[in-house]
């Protein structure tokens, strides 16, 4: 056994670049399929409510603002969202998607809310709502 077996490694590291990056001046790139925050593409939403039903955090809220005009409002409560992307998986038309933002903190939780008001789209679902 030899004393100080770690010393060569320690000395080597004196001349290495640090393992961390200089955040916030330098940012790491997130991977391609990073799960950021969910967002809606209203032109594709057929209001099947699969996302609302499957969201484990109950972060999605869909209400009808005008039944006759088929006008709906969707609110995504990003302060509750756990960024699991289950809504993306459940959506039959790709209307729900994830962005790659990760710096989403705010001083007020209400600012995290995202809202869309739209008329129900008439697109053919690519598949049945996956979990029904």
């Amino acid at each position: 056994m030899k004393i100080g077996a770690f010393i060569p490694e320690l000395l080597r590291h004196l001349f290495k670049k640090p393992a961390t990056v200089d955040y916030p001046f330098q940012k790491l790139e997130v991977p391609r399929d990073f799960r950021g925050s969910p967002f809606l593409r209203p032109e594709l939403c057929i209001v099947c409510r699969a996302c609302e039903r499957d969201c484990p955090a109950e972060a999605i809220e869909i209400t009808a603002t005008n039944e006759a005009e088929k006008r709906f409002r969707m609110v995504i409560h990003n302060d509750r969202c756990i960024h699991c992307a289950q809504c993306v998986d459940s959506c039959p038309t790709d209307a729900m998607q994830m962005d790659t933002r990760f710096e989403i903190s705010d001083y007020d939780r209400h600012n995290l809310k995202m809202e869309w008001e739209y008329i129900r789209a008439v697109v053919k679902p690519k598949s049945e709502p996956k979990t029904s």
Partner: protein
Amino acid sequence: MKFQIPIGPQHPALKEPISLRMTVEGEIIRDADLRLGYNHRGLEKLAEQKTWIQNIYLTERICGICSHSHTTCYVQGVEKLMELEPPRRGLYIRTLVAELERVHSHLLWLGVAGHEAGFDSFFMYTWRDREIVMDILETISGNRVHYGINTIGGVRRDLDEQQVKHILDSLAILRQRSEYYQHLGTNEPSFVARLAGVGYLSREDAIALCAVGPTLRASGVPMDVRKDDPYAVYAEVPFEVCTADTCDVLGRTVVRIKELFQCYNIIEYLLKNLPSGPVAVRAPRRAKPNEVVSRYEAPRGENIHYIKSNGTDKPERLKVRAPTLGNYAATLKMLKNGFIADVPLIFAAIDPCICCAERAVSLVDARSGQEKIISMNALKQLSRQVAAGNARKREAEWPL
């Protein structure tokens, strides 16, 4: 003179905060007592109000480090209830993530062991190298901690060629680094001397007290759910169950290092033999009334989920037995007749991460009721003093 020392109960970094009450005579612990239930989250009750799908993400949050263990355990049970047969590619990816998680958990643990033994540069290097496996997990699943890769009937994301190559490349670096840590263990006498002989748990005690995981295997009992009751694709993957017979913290370290190398082999095998095809099948929303027990070998030991369905889209009952709970009785045994200064090390060795944050320990004089508060830092200082003051156990050998 006998003292009583309570440790805990509140400790934010713990998955299961506990209160430890130790009766000490001088520096020696004569008796230890454990109280549980300080951080009851009502998770099992909550699961009864969520659908099968929603519960995947709930069980994931039982633990931050073995998140995949809990979802796999749950999902396997639900698949049995729904009589689903996940496709083989899905099972391969599920197993792959499970082994990557084991790598990250064991590297994390190695760092913690180094930290508790007063070897902080070791801690920083292992944690830096752990980032490699965290990055792999992030590219596969889109998240570093809660991978959310499981779904009922398979996995949610597929692997492409590029990712497979990336994993294999990173694996080479990880393997090289782990070999270095193994070499270091053999050659750094102070590290080995600090771990050898601490927290002794005999083979008979380990079996009688139902220890699980590396704690059990370090006492020479070759038990591993992956071998004894294979789930996912473990029946067709070649690997060995790693054991050690020193029955102490050193043995637990050795088991984990050996398991790291097994993990690398398994990951390589899985990637080289990845079958093609779909990764998931469609799951129904309801499960017929039935009940099921699902077992899983988490990095810390055997994880058990009991699930009962009643024909609706929600479970009627979900019961979770996390591995740390299985190890508590054995921990008490290990603490007995040990030193106070070894408490952080022994506790860290079952891997509940009890020592990673500042916490107060109060010493109570059993007769006068007099209390003295010492901080975790002071306790660690004490631990280091004892280690420094001891004549080095020069005969202590790295048993790998």
